[in-house]
């Protein structure tokens, strides 16, 4: 029954990766932003919450709300207005560089102004275990999976079922044509940045109780988001979800059965294999190339 346990904890990790990867991919689709700071984006909201509790004296629930709003404003709105907008006309590379610099800024900022030590982060649920079909499963993992499923389901409904969501999809597919058809492209891009802000905040609240909040957390998370997005397929939301889940499960299986030392290497081989044999990703469609 060990396998079941590993699968469930793998799916839980994978669900968090999927949330981060979906946000990453949405930014790429609508505004060609390769966000090298995505991992730091997940690291930061936990510190918003901790700071609100420590300095503002708020209860955990209110602090989470503050954390969510702060990440919507800073990681969504300000990131777009101050960093992405002025840079878009220069092309992709300068934007990549400035997200790298932004990641450095967030990391060093947290280290300098909050703490270099790992901070315990409270969990909203019980950290007990229950027994399912002979396997010991932690409630925490089940809650993570449930929350992620609800979040992704809501997002899918929003993108496919509402007018705004379909306008966002149109923007992602062909911004020029969307503009001609009367879609307010710039506003749709802003929405994707806000959605990303919400997704990273959610991922942060889910993962921080497990790994503790630390300024270096973003490094592994950012890499996981990249790998998940590419493995699953760069041009589809469900690709990123599948990529995240696969990555989480593979990661946990590798740690249990192959080697803990090379646990980090398996996802990288997966990445290289996918780029070699199926560059559009497992679920992606081949994009038409202009060259």
């Amino acid at each position, binding site marked *: 029954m060990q396998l079941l346990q590993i699968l469930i904890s793998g799916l839980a990790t994978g669900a968090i990766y999927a949330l981060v990867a979906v946000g990453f991919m949405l930014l790429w689709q609508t505004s060609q932003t*390769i966000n090298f700071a995505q991992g730091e984006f997940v690291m930061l909201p936990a510190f918003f919450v901790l700071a609100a509790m420590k300095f503002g004296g708020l209860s955990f629930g209110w602090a989470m709300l503050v954390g969510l709003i702060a990440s919507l404003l800073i990681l969504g709105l300000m990131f777009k207005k101050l*960093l992405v907008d*002025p*840079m878009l006309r*220069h*092309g*992709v*590379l*300068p*934007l*990549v*560089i*400035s997200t*790298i*610099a*932004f990641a*450095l*800024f967030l990391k*060093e*900022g947290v*280290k*300098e102004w909050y703490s270099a030590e790992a901070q315990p982060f409270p969990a909203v649920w019980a950290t007990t275990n229950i027994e399912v079909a002979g396997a010991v499963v932690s409630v925490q993992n089940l809650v993570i999976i449930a929350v992620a499923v609800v979040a992704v389901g809501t997002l899918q409904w929003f993108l496919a079922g509402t007018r705004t969501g379909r306008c966002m999809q149109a923007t992602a597919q062909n911004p020029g044509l969307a503009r001609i058809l009367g879609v307010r492209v710039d506003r749709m891009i802003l929405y994707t940045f806000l959605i990303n802000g919400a997704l990273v905040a959610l991922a942060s609240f889910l993962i921080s109780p497990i790994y503790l909040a630390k300024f270096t957390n973003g*490094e592994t998370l950012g*890499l996981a988001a*990249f*790998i998940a997005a*590419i493995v699953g397929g760069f041009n589809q939301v469900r690709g990123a979800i599948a990529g995240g889940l696969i990555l989480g499960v593979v990661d946990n299986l590798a740690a249990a059965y192959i080697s803990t*030392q*090379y646990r*980090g*290497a398996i996802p*990288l*081989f997966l*990445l*290289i294999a996918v*780029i*070699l044999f199926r*560059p559009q990703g497992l679920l992606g469609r081949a994009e038409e*190339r*202009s*060259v």
Partner: protein
Amino acid sequence: MKRLPAVLGLIVLAGLLIAPFALKPHGIYLLSMWAVMSIAAIGLNLTLGYAGQISLAQAAFVGIGAYCTAILTTKFGWSFPATFVLGAVLCFVVGWLLGYPALRVQHHYLAFVTLAFTTLVYLVLRNEEKITGGTYGISGIKRPVLLGWATQGARDYYFLCLLVLAVVAFATWWLVRSPWGRAFMALRENPLRASSLGVDTRRYTLMAFAIGSALGGVAGSLYAPLVEFIDPSPFALGLSLNLLLMVIVGGSGYFWGPFLGAIVSVLLPEWLRVADGLYLIIYSVAVMVLMVFCPSGLLGLAERIFKRPKAANAAKVAT
């Protein structure tokens, strides 16, 4: 006015030659580090600035070069020049093999593949304790004696680094002016047009990437005897990102960009010691501001400032 760059260049060169006689050993060490990082950044500038491909593997190549020299000189008694050449060749070959699949597909796949590669190399360096010493690293890397010239002293080793930098710089200068270099630039400016004019795009991009990687190996070979002790941590993704920032901040695609970028990244933190922890914060903000206002880097900024009055004068004359 045309003489100005030449005069400026001579002054800087004279400064570099005189400086070690006026500096303390730590200052000389920093200058040597600057020379080593400049070599790695020149390599990356070939890939990024001239051929327009984002590579995050430069740290891995520096690591391969460094470990090649460290392992072969301490454990197998090889001479330094042999390991130096082997390191460069090894990086060239690995670069070629790595770039081959990645350049099949367009967009930013090279960035992702190289990112994965850097992390993989780091894991191997850390985990294969029998060969690389794991986290304990390799100590006692000796500085070489070349043709009777002992480079044990900080000053002598600095001159060796400077000599290699000069050779690399000259070779690169020649390369970017050769038909190859022009093909590299054609790739960056307009790949579609380059290929329609008969430039084998993929081969040239691969070539630029492999040569850039080989220069990373050269930098690594010099790095190991300079610090005399190596462990895996300096060759993680952080160095790759740092080298990328060096090239961009200096001015990618400018010949002198990597030199300037390496100054900003190696020497400036030392001068701004007072700022301490805040240094990286200030640096990152400065990079973001620079990218917003002048994505072509410091040299691009300088060009803009110095060229504009001239253009204005020309306009005046014309009217």
